[in-house]
C-alpha cells in the first residue's frame, strides 16, 4: 500500500533499505505558522539542519498543537490531538520531536506531561486513537530547536562551526512565554532568568542585550481581542530593548515574530519608534554557519534586517 504512505514514511522506508543516512534523525513538528505566514522560518530551519548535519523528518499528517486556544473550548481535545501526533512519531521510530515555536513547545509538552502522568488521560486518548488504529505508548520527548542546539550540538561545537561571526551585533533575546512558562511543564531552564538565547547569541559572535522585556509577553494571543493591546505590549518590550542598546532581536517563536515584526510600527505613536529587526532563531544561526543570506527569507520581514546587517559588515 505504498500509495497511502506519508512522505516521511516513504523517506524512512528508503533509509532503512539503503541504510544511507548516518546523521542523527529527529521527528519535526513545524507548527502552523511556519507553514503559513512565516514560511521563511520553515525554510531556514531546513537549511540550518543541513549545516548541522542532522535530519528533521517532518510529521506531515500532524495537527495543530492547540495553540493555547483550543483549551478554552474543551479540556481534552488538544491533549488527544497531540497524542495522535506522538503516536505518528512513535510509529516511525522517532522518539524525539523537535519544534520551532515556543507555543507549540509549551502546549505539546503540557499534553505529553498529562498523558504520561495520568493513566486516565492516556487511556482516554488511546481509546480514541484506537478508532483509527493508532496508539501512543508515552515514549516521545518534545523539545525546541533551541534546546537541541545546546544539548545535542553544544555551544562549543556551535561556536566552532561559525564561519560568519556576527561582529558584535547587539541582539536582544525574546523568549516567548510558552518555551519557559509554566516551569512545571518546561523546566529546561529557569523561567525567571533564562540564558539559552544569550548563550547562542554569544556563540555566534554577537553581543547579548539584557532587558526586562525578554521573558515578557508579545501579546500575540490577544491581538484580535481588543485593538491596541498587542501593539502596546510589543512597544513596551521593544522600547526596553532599544533603550538598552539593541540593534536587533532574536526569537525562537514565530508568533512572537509576527507580533514584534508587525506591531512596532503601530506602537510608535505611544512608545516611540524602535524599528528593531526581528530574526527567527534559525535564520541567525544559519547565517553564522554559512547559509547564504539570500536563502533565509530576510526580505519577508516587515522591518528589513538587512540595513542593520550592512552596518555591521555582515552583508554587502
Amino acid at each position, binding site marked *: 500500500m505504498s500509495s497511502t504512505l506519508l512522505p516521511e514514511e516513504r523517506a524512512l522506508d528508503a533509509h532503512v533499505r539503503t541504510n544511507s543516512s548516518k546523521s542523527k534523525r529527529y521527528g519535526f513538528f513545524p507548527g502552523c505558522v511556519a507553514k503559513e*505566514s512565516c514560511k521563511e522560518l520553515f525554510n531556514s530551519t531546513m537549511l540550518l539542519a543541513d549545516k548541522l548535519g542532522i535530519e528533521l523528518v517532518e510529521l506531515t499528517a*500532524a495537527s495543530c498543537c492547540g495553540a493555547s486556544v483550543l483549551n*478554552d473550548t474543551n479540556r481534552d481535545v488538544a491533549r*488527544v490531538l497531540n497524542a495522535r501526533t506522538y503516536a505518528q512519531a512513535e510509529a516511525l521510530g522517532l522518539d524525539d520531536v523537535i519544534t520551532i515555536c515556543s507555543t507549540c513547545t509549551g502546549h505539546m509538552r503540557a499534553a505529553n506531561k498529562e498523558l504520561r502522568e495520568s493513566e486516565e488521560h492516556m487511556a482516554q486518548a488511546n481509546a480514541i486513537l484506537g478508532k483509527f488504529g493508532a496508539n501512543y505508548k508515552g515514549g516521545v520527548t518534545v523539545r525546541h530547536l533551541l534546546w537541541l542546539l545546546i544539548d545535542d550540538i553544544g555551544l562549543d561545537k556551535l561556536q566552532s562551526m561559525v564561519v560568519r561571526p556576527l561582529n558584535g551585533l547587539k541582539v536582544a533575546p525574546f523568549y516567548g512565554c510558552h518555551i519557559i512558562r509554566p516551569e512545571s511543564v518546561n523546566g529546561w531552564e529557569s523561567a*525567571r*532568568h533564562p540564558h539559552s538565547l544569550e548563550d547562542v547569541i554569544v556563540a555566534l559572535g554577537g553581543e547579548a542585550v539584557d532587558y526586562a522585556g525578554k521573558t515578557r509577553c508579545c501579546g500575540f494571543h490577544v491581538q484580535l481581542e*481588543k485593538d491596541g*493591546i498587542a501593539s502596546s505590549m510589543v512597544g513596551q518590550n521593544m522600547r526596553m530593548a532599544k533603550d538598552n542598546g539593541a540593534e536587533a532581536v532574536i526569537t525562537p517563536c514565530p508568533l512572537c515574530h509576527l507580533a514584534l515584526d508587525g506591531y512596532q510600527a503601530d506602537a510608535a505613536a505611544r512608545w516611540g519608534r524602535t524599528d528593531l529587526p526581528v530574526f527567527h532563531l534559525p535564520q541567525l544561526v544559519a547565517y553564522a554557519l554559512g547559509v547564504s543570506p539570500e536563502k533565509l527569507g530576510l526580505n519577508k520581514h*516587515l522591518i528589513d534586517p538587512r540595513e542593520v546587517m550592512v552596518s555591521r559588515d555582515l552583508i554587502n
Partner: protein
Amino acid sequence: MAKIKLDIFRFDEATDTIPHRDEVTVDLPETTTVLDALEYAKAEVDGSISFRRSCRSAICGSCSMSIGGVTSLACKTSCGSAMEEDGSVKIDPMPNFQPMKDLVVHMDPFWDKYARLKPYLQPNDADSAHQTERRVSPDDMKKLVDVANCIMCATCYSLCPVVSVDPAFAGPAAIAYAYRFIEDVRDGQRKERIAQISEDYLWLCAHCYACSYCPKHVDPNDRIIDVKRAAIKDRVMMNERGPRHALVVAKTIKQTGMLAETEVIQGTVGRFNIRGLLKVAPLGARMALKGKLPPPFLKPVPKVDEIRTIFDALEAPVR
C-alpha cells in the same frame, strides 16, 4: 555570614518627585529571607525604609515586592536566590501599581477589581428556607480548594503584562476568584458572574503564564481557562471576540488539521464587520507587500478524518 547589598528603591509620594536608590549592606547569611534582611536593615541601619509585612510565613500576602526583577513574597524568597553577580539584591515595589512610599504601593485598583466580583456566596434561596446546612460533595469542593488558598498578595496582578498596558483588565487573581464562586454549587449567580467577569475582559488574558509564579500554587492561568470554558458552555456573551476566536480556531483545526490564520482573523473580527476588518487591514497590506500573507484556504493535512474523529468523540465545541 556574607555581605549582602540590598539595592532598594526609595520614594515618598508626599515629598519626592522622582525616586532614588539606596544601597544598604547587611552582614547576614545568604539563606536569610529578603524580608528578614529588610527588617534587619530597618532596625539597624535606616529606620525610614518602608515595606508592608505581617505574618512572615507566606500566609498574609502583605510583603509582595519585586525581587531581582520578579515579584515574589519577601518572606518566602532567600537573598541568595535573588542575588546578582556583584552580591546585590535588587528590591523594588510591585510593578503595575502606583508607589506610595519605598516598597509600599497603592493597592486600591486590585481591591476594586476584587470587590466588583461580589466575593461572597449568593444562593438562590434564602437562608431561612434552609433547615439544614447547604451540602457540597467532596468532589465539588475539591475544585475550589486551590483557589481558596489565594492570599491576595497581588503577585500575579503585578506580573500581568495585560494589566500593564490596559488597567481595565480584571487581572488573574480576580478571574481565579470569580471561578471560586462560578463553580460553587451553592451559588445562584453563575451566569451573572460569568457575564460580569467577561465584561471585565476575561478574554483579554494573553495566555502568558506569568501568573504561574503564584507563591500559593493557585495557578490563576488554569482557572482563567476554566472560566472561559464555563462561558462557552453556558453561552454567555458569545458574540464577543474572545469566544468567537476560540471557536473559530477549533473549527479550522477540525476542518483542516491546522490553525488557518486567514479564516481565524475573519472569524474573530467578523466577516461582515467592515470597520473591524479595516482596522486589521493596514498590517495585512504591509504583510501582503512582503509576500507574507497566509494562504486564503488550506489544504487539509493527510488523514484529517482522524482529527475530526477526535473532535467528535470528545464532543468538542466548534463554531
